[in-house]
């Protein structure tokens, strides 16, 4: 566990590179259903629609989409994509925590 911690810190400190993250079928992990009770859009605080096909959470009003990666919903507004454009949208902030 200690080694795990230092590896994480080293990655965070060096500003990360996305090497070897996706292990193939990681996108297929579904969202924990109980979470949907609580999750809202962080910007408008309005409820979201869960789209099973693309595994995303959609805010219809503002037209933004939050991805779910490895079963973890990414609710950072900067990382979300708009429904109009094509998504380049990965790269959530790896700021120090």
């Amino acid at each position: 566990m200690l080694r795990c911690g230092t590896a994480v810190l080293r990655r965070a400190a060096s500003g990360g590179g996305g090497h070897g993250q996706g292990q193939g079928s990681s996108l297929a992990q579904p969202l924990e259903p109980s979470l949907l009770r609580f999750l809202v859009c962080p910007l408008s605080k309005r409820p979201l629609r869960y789209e099973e096909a693309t595994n995303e959470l959609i805010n219809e009003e503002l037209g933004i989409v939050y991805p779910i990666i490895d079963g973890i919903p990414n609710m950072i507004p900067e990382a979300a994509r708009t429904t109009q454009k094509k998504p380049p949208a990965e790269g959530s902030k790896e700021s120090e925590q």
Partner: protein
Amino acid sequence: MNDSMTLGIHRVWKDILVHKMNPSPGTLLLDVAGGTGDIAFRFINYVRSVRERQLQRKLRHHQNLSWQEIAESYQEDKSKSLGDSQVVVCDINKEMLKVGKQRAQHLGYTEGLSWVLGNAEELPFDDDKFDVYTIAFGIRNVTRIDLALQEAYRVLKPGGRFLCLEFSHVSNPLLSSLYDLYSFQVIPVLGEVIAGDWKSYQYLVESIRRFPPQEELKAMIEDAGFLKVDYQNLNSGIVAIHSGFKL
């Protein structure tokens, strides 16, 4: 690294936090900046043991049970070992969450645990949802602490509790100088030797010094609307637990 810097005492601090919380089964916890799951796992363990004790007490009072009732009680045990308690871990750092999720799998935590990538200043949760909000060693890294406190107030149910575990200020002058010596001479060296990163640990120690002291943080928490705000110093103020209620 946490173990090296604090000689393992950080585990005790986190234990004390959960004991102070004293959650009962059915509690809904939001753990912010708790990426690697330390508080979440302790919460689950605590609730599980409380639940076990509850069930044992119940069984002890029922001496003459029919076979049907005994079978039913075994089924209840399996489905409600947590008693509907749940913890949502929210962190801004994806790597921390991934580590936390892996640890959860290794340690066998399967139910009652969810992970969300989110910003403490802009929580993706609805109003009046959680019984307890904790932030352990995370509020120091938030840019706008007042926003984080306001968000905490928003997502808590009325009657909900805010708990913050964070490095704070040592008032005793002798201890303070010893602590400064340790912080500035030893910790960055440990950081270099173990993690190959002097700068981050230098930053860590400086950020602790810059963080508001106990009374100031208490005032900020009160400004967000919390009542009965209080703090408990651990290790003479090296660490403090601030607590407030949404009433």
